[in-house]
């Protein structure tokens, strides 16, 4: 019975050691698949930390998945635009794959701007004026409320429109070279080819197909969902 207990403890300890082996040691052992899984887990748990995004890029590159590496470097730069290692590796890869990385994609969206500040300030002023009006009804406060409300409403609408506009441009990275189809069906004719690591604009989707527009040569067509990874935009 004791022997059995020891055996169980030993197996549990072994499994525990194996389970805690991190991506770095797996990478050094050239177990790139294991390292990728480990970094991916940490990437998900950290909600897209640029460090894991970068390490996933390095591991993908070691695995020969250069398109996936481009995606992770772009993703890392979305969260940390000053990340020079990611920028450097992305430059080397883009040169190697002969693809163009739009400058807009290596920077996060600049969401904090004057419109938002105006909206926040006007909201606070409106709220204070309204509160004062509840206790000291005065015609001057009533008169001041209308223009403040108008400023608040206009800035909210402007910000929403700007935000919508920025969100509408949906970028993606081609992780595996794929034929561009004329429609969302395998049997339809090819109208072009997407290079591995190429940047595309995702126009729409239908089932397991994306309608995309190639950034490189402006060609529009359909590609299977698995060949493209949508970039999650970073916001300042």
């Amino acid at each position: 019975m004791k022997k059995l207990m020891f055996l169980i403890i030993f197996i549990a300890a072994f499994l525990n050691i194996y389970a805690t082996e991190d991506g770095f040691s797996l990478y050094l052992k050239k177990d790139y698949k294991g390292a990728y899984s480990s970094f991916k887990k940490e990437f998900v748990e950290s909600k897209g930390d640029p460090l894991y995004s970068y390490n996933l890029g390095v591991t993908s590159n070691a695995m020969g998945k250069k398109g996936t590496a481009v995606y992770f470097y772009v993703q890392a730069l979305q969260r940390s635009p000053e990340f020079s290692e990611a920028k450097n590796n992305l430059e080397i890869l883009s040169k190697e794959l002969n693809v163009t990385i739009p400058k807009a994609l290596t920077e996060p969206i600049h969401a904090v701007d004057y419109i938002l500040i105006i909206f926040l300030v006007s909201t606070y002023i409106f709220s204070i004026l309204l509160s004062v009006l509840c206790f000291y009804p005065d015609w001057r406060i009533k008169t001041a409320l209308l223009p403040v409300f108008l400023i608040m409403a206009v800035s909210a609408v402007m910000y929403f429109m700007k935000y919508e506009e920025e969100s509408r441009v949906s970028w993606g990275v081609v992780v595996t070279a794929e034929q561009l189809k004329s429609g969302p069906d395998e049997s339809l004719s090819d109208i072009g080819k997407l290079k591995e690591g190429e940047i595309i604009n995702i126009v729409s989707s239908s089932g397991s197909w994306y309608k995309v527009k190639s950034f490189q040569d402006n060609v529009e067509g359909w590609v299977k969902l698995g060949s493209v990874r949508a970039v999650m935009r970073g916001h300042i």
Partner: protein
Amino acid sequence: MTSKLSKILMLLVFLLASFALYGGTVTLSTDRSTVMAGEVFRFILTAEGSFDSINEPVFKDFTVENRSESQSSSISIINGRMESKKTVNYIYHLRAEKAGVFKIGPASVKLQSGKTADSNIVSVTVTGSLTSPPSSHGDDSVDSSVPTTNSLLAPLTNWEKKTPDYFLRAVVKPSGEVYEGEPLVVKYYLFAKPGIISDISSYKSPSFENCWKDEKVESRFKVERGAIEGAVYDYGLLATYTLIPQKGADSVTATQMILDVTTGSFFNTRRHTLSTPALRIPLNPLPEKENRPDGLFGSVTVSADRQSIKLDRDNLLETVTYTISGCGNLNSAEITLEEDPALLMFSPEIDLTAGDTQNGYCGHKKYKFMIKGLRKGKTALNGRALSFFSREKGWEKVEVPQIQVDIKEVSALADSSTERNARSFELLKELPAGIKKYEISPLVERTWFKIAMGIPFLVTVLSFMIWILKSVMKKRAGSYQTKLTKWKTEISSSATMNELLNNFYDALKELFGIELRGERKQNLKRKYGESIEDVLGFIKEIEHSSYGAKDDADLSDFKLKALAFLNFRGHKK
């Protein structure tokens, strides 16, 4: 006698002149260097000087339609020296048989000295056919001999004659033969005799193969009127497709465009389905394609936004923009910079703005290169020349302007590309210091933003609730005062003790919710506390007085007491 003498004199002069001549030249020329296949053009051979015979050039790729010759001679004496000049012109009318770039010549003249003088060689570019425009109908068996619909108001084809009152027409531009990579514009029109079509339903767009496509569907059906072979038609543009054939493709094909139309009036409508034939536009390879594998169709120029750049401490990275402007296959035109070990050139940002114009598919394509210095010194940015073919100009070599680069300073990261590569692709245990992390989630979804927006919202709601509470209390207070006044009046106007008692009971009940009638004293005390004792004492007093039939003076006293009770209670409330 005189005429005989003059003839002898002329002969002498001619002989002398002939002796005076010592050489000759022969030149070939043409009135047009680019012609269309099937077109006739003039070709001229000019021989000047002293020669025995002329060897004409061989026209193996052309048909000689006509040949004529003219001669002239002149003698001049300059500074006592006599010079004689003979000029012979052969004028050929040639017809080009096939497209391509062909060379004619050389011709030669045999000089009197026994030597031979050769002429120049003339190059003639023959472009697409005049007589065989591309068929806009794939269904040759149906419609092989009809004129094509390359003109908007061309006569009806056999296909269109099936439904002569209404039909769809595809108009292809350019109308002649199309070269590989040459942009095409296909416009689809609906033609109908006036008043026949009442409605147009959805249609199936054609799908094109072997080409890049840009589709523009008209949002409004704009009707125009025109005549075909004397018959009046209303017609409107449905869709325009700009196509650029893929490299190596021998044809561009398109499936049928299908459109549902409704004819007839309100009570007698019929639906018909119209279609165009499938299209097959054959493509000709560019002339001398084998010598110019990177050659493209079109006519362009390349410019650069600057002539030189300086990379120094303040400016380690520079952007240079090359612009390809013109008409033709801009989509495939590329600016490629030659590798330079002293420079790091990043993949360019490309921006293409082009569209269908009167001159064809025209616009500009911008290449933005970011340049970084790797080694100090002077160098230059050299681009690979482009090769373009057009009907008007034939083959052209388009040079990319050279940009001088003066590298004064290199960035620490970019001192050697080999070193850079070696340092790259290493895992990192932690983020380098001082790097900011931005959020993936949009600003409006973040906690701080929600809190920032929540505070004024809560303050406003709270203030509003307080205001409502205050308003309700005020309203209630106002209502009590009204009731109190009413009961005071009632009590004051009571004529008897009994009436006063009843009014007092009712006032207590309505104003304070105290119901005294039918309740035992102990219960009332338990319910309303000891303070009810004085009210009960007062009521007892009224009851005694009413049995005793007191006078009016007493009634007034009781009224005052009752009012005092109500006032006192009101203050307590």
